[in-house]
């Protein structure tokens, strides 16, 4: 019964479970208090911060914990915009950003600013030249994902960062899909601000990372508190943070080995699925991609029916087809790439995925798609 949707949420890493339980016993007190229980909680929080900061190449005082990846993106980006409001509030993003980035963009547009959504090619890669040309004297910030969440394409972040540095405009990097999967170093990427999310790497849900580099102008919007350097209000979920750190540490140790194991499985799906099934399109970049994620679309098939039928056959995947979205709009990522939006399947492998799981996928998907084409609205084709 393969679970092939780790990009939506990965199961808790065994290393995280142990730490999570221990931290509920030892890390329940308020880490800002001076008593011994508070000091013990503070020590746990400091250790988790130091551990995770090192793993993403940041200083501990640059790292803040938030309540989710989306919160990190929201706070990270709006903080940059607020700090540079006097230059203008314009924003440059790629057309294939996560909805959390696009939600900030819509708010900014509502406030009268100009948002430029820079297009991508058929593989989903953003055009560096177009991105740098979109930067003007009124641009307050640029936001670009490290890798795309729907198709796995890795973006030329360092090249865009160089253009941003030349224009003296800060860059927010959404690294939610790459932390724990690819080497992520905030300095090497050239990010001013970086966001990530623990449940993508086998940490508990409800922990976001927000890195704000030293010297970057960033201002909190909304009420300010003392906790988390004034960047994230509220009592930090310390047990979850400690478990997220333990998980990231374990996953980072396994990372290169796991990438070397999973990437050939992704290659096999990419090359084999079109041989076994007519009228499908495997999307995203073949080479510059996440090691564990692959997406394809099947002509004449309803994405919801496909996901439901695969689930019935014991295979869990997700879909960017409009019939699977509450908005009934097709995925903005697939739309921007100009690839098929219906019959879409995203497969993301995890540390539990075996070569046998992939063979099962390669066997079951063509059967299910043929069945749906025979029995669905495409029957008379």
């Amino acid at each position, binding site marked *: 019964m393969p679970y092939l949707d780790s990009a939506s949420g990965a199961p808790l890493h065994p290393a995280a479970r142990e730490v999570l339980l221990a931290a509920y016993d030892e890390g329940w007190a308020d880490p800002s208090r001076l008593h011994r229980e508070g000091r013990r909680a503070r020590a746990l929080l400091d250790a988790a911060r130091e551990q995770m900061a090192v793993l993403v190449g940041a200083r501990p005082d640059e790292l803040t914990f938030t309540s989710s990846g989306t919160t990190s993106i929201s706070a990270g980006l709006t903080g940059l915009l607020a700090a540079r409001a006097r230059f203008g509030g314009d924003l440059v993003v790629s057309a294939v950003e996560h909805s959390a980035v696009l939600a900030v963009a819509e708010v900014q547009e509502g406030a009268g600013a100009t948002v430029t959504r820079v297009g991508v090619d058929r593989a989903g890669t953003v055009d560096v030249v177009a991105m740098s040309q979109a930067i003007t004297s009124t641009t307050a910030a640029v936001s670009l994902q490290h890798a795309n969440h729907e198709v796995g394409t890795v973006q030329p972040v360092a090249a865009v960062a160089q253009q941003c540095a030349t224009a003296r405009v800060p860059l927010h990097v959404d690294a939610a899909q790459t932390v724990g999967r690819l080497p992520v170093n905030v300095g090497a990427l050239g990010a001013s601000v970086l966001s990530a999310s623990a449940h993508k790497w086998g940490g508990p849900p409800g922990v976001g990372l927000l890195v704000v580099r030293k010297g970057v102008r960033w201002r909190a919007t909304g009420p300010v508190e003392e906790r988390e350097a004034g960047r994230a209000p509220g009592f930090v979920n310390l047990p979850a943070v400690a478990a997220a750190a333990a998980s990231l540490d374990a996953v980072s140790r396994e990372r290169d080995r796991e990438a070397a194991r999973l990437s050939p499985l992704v290659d096999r799906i990419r090359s084999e699925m079109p041989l076994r099934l007519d009228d499908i*399109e495997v999307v995203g970049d073949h080479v510059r991609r996440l090691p564990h994620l692959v997406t394809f679309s099947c*002509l004449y098939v309803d994405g919801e029916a496909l996901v439901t039928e695969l689930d019935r056959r014991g295979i869990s995947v997700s879909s960017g087809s*409009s*019939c699977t979205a509450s908005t009934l*709009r097709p995925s903005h990522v697939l739309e921007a790439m100009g690839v*098929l939006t219906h019959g879409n399947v995203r497969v993301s492998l995890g540390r539990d995925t075996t070569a046998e799981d992939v063979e099962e996928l390669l066997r079951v998907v063509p059967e299910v798609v043929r069945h749906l084409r025979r029995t669905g609205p495409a029957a008379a084709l």
Partner: protein
Amino acid sequence: MKEAVALTIDTLGRRCPVPVIELAKHIGDVAVGDVVEVLSDDEASRVDVPVWCRMKGHDYLGVSPAAVGNALRVRRRH
């Protein structure tokens, strides 16, 4: 100046992938070189009709607003 439409396929009210399926079913009803028009009010068809043309080797001519939804025009190539 738009070319004469040889066949209009009305898929108004039908969701993806029905507009593309109807196009695939009826492209053979017109002569090679003739133009088929798909009427659709489904957002996905604006993306999927051009992609279908690319995958199947037909010419996508463009989209224009119709009384309801959009009219997507395709030239049969083979």
